[in-house]
């Protein structure tokens, strides 16, 4: 299983516009990716491509989240998605 941690950089947290940009990017990946807050069990992780899940995750600016995937060759996908989380999407 591939795993990658990332710190939420958007000032509003993973809500609204940043959440929709991230969900869209996750849906576009060839692999299935989950997201959870750091320290939460992997089985409670949520679908990263669901904006509604991201909203209920409630990750704020500065929170560390964990991206995971069981699919083969997921490393590139996780890296790409982590980069999005580490960008302040609300700044543009």
């Amino acid at each position, binding site marked *: 299983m591939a795993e990658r941690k990332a710190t939420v950089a958007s000032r509003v947290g993973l809500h*609204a*516009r940043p959440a929709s940009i991230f969900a869209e990017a996750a849906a576009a990946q060839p692999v299935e990716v989950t997201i959870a807050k750091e320290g939460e069990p992997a089985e409670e992780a*949520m*679908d990263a491509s669901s904006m509604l*899940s991201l909203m209920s995750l*409630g990750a704020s600016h500065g929170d560390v989240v964990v991206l995971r995937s069981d699919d083969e060759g997921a490393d590139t996908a996780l890296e790409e998605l982590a980069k999005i989380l580490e960008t302040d999407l609300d700044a543009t």
Partner: protein
Amino acid sequence: MMRTIQGIGVSAGRVLGPSRRMPPPVPEPDPEAKPAPGSTVDGEKARLKDAAEAVREDLKHRAETASGDAKAVLDATAMMASDPMLLKAAGKHINAGMSTDRAIWEAGMEVAAMLQSLGGYMAERTQDVLDVRARIVAELNGLPAPGIPASDVPFILTAVELAPADTATLDPAMVIGLVTSEGGPQSHTAILARSLGLPAVVGAPGADEVPDGAEIYLDGASGTVVVEPGSGERDAANKYAARSSLPAFNGSGATSDGHHVPLLANVGSGKDARAAAEAGAEGIGLLRTEFCFLGRDTEPTIEEQVAAYGAVFEAFPGRKVVIRTLDAGADKPLPFLTDATEPNPALGVRGFRTDRTSPGVLARQLEAIAAAAGAHTADVWVMAPMISTAEEAADFAVMCAGAGLGMPGVMVEVPAAAIMSEAVLSRVRFASLGTNDLTQYTMASDRQLGSLASLNDPWQPAVLQLISATVAGAARATALEPASGARTVGVCGEAAADPALAVVLAGMGVNTLSMTPRALSGVGAVLESVTLEQAKELASRALAAHTAAEARTIVRSRLPILEQLGL
């Protein structure tokens, strides 16, 4: 064949164009319904996914042509339509043997409850999920998508009645007029039409049954709707389109001979206040404070209130701002203040009356108003809604004095307060006539009921008499005790936004008029076309009329500028 429908004109203007019908709301799917015979779980899931995808594409397409807030809302809603969380929840219900319609309906409800429990921004998205749910059910059943219909050409929207939620998606560039079969002068449709400056007729029976695409003509001043209009209507619409454009409001309301009638704005937030200042409003005649309280389970803190009121005061440095204390109850229930089980909320514990059942909330609000007023230069006046007696006025004045607020006043919405104006105004410094509620209570007709719209008309002679009585009582209260200054009377109901009625009000001796900022230029221009003497003459003619229609016709026929400006 040409056919005329008579309704109530609520926003002036004459337009002609194809009609588009607002689809009826999507009905709730039967909870007992079984899956269609021969359908499979996988087949139904695939059908649901396709429907969700179609809704998403439609919303995305609409987002491309929208702009600003509407675009953001449509984009976010489009993503929700095919959200895995929503579809997975529905899939579980389908697995359990539920019909597909009901499965997505329940899933939407669960997701909405989840968002609601998160509060704040998430809770505000609840409506979007419910909207998506209805769209998917419509798609599954081949019904037209709910909400304002899409069109490539400008059209006149026909509906039973519009809901507040429809306002977000109404594109004023596409919708050139509104006709509803229900609703009255104070309905959501009417308020929306006036704020957008769209010609509108409400309470026009059968208007929602006009076939889609049929050409219709509407006159928002007379309330006439013509289906398949002739050349006369076409000429009238063309003339309206070529009308002299309304000059922007010059920032000082006055008759042609210089009698000053300050034109103020009705606002509900700091953002509204800044827009009102830009439109030239001379101050705020009604700051509704409900925006701070509505949609909350608990009372906002004093600090939150200070910040919210301060944002409005900041937009009008050195100018008058009349703030109305919390008007909860009736159509604006609040869980921590009002009793939702009252059999007759319009006559129940609402407005100032909530201080009896929940003491403390009003005192804390006054404390917050005083703190915000202290931090800004605006001239802050405070008034209580739903005052019926001189004792209530006196109690409120004492509370204001205790908070250090020097300009206490009352809303006059209850006929008792209008009749007893002299006594009431002996206790406070000013009155503001809320003509929407004053009309509803005078005529004993629910303002939300379209079938009673003709009674709910501020031109009704009884309402005009009560306004006149309030002004006369204020003058007597001033004469009795001149040392405490003139008792002024303003109007902050929709009546003040009707340019013809505004002239009548000024002629009656009303001191200030407060309205939606959109109405300032029209009222300003018409007021400027008469002398004070002419306004007084029109007021006495209106007061002598026996019916609302007679009063309106007499006054309008003597104000030729209304026709020139298409008002």
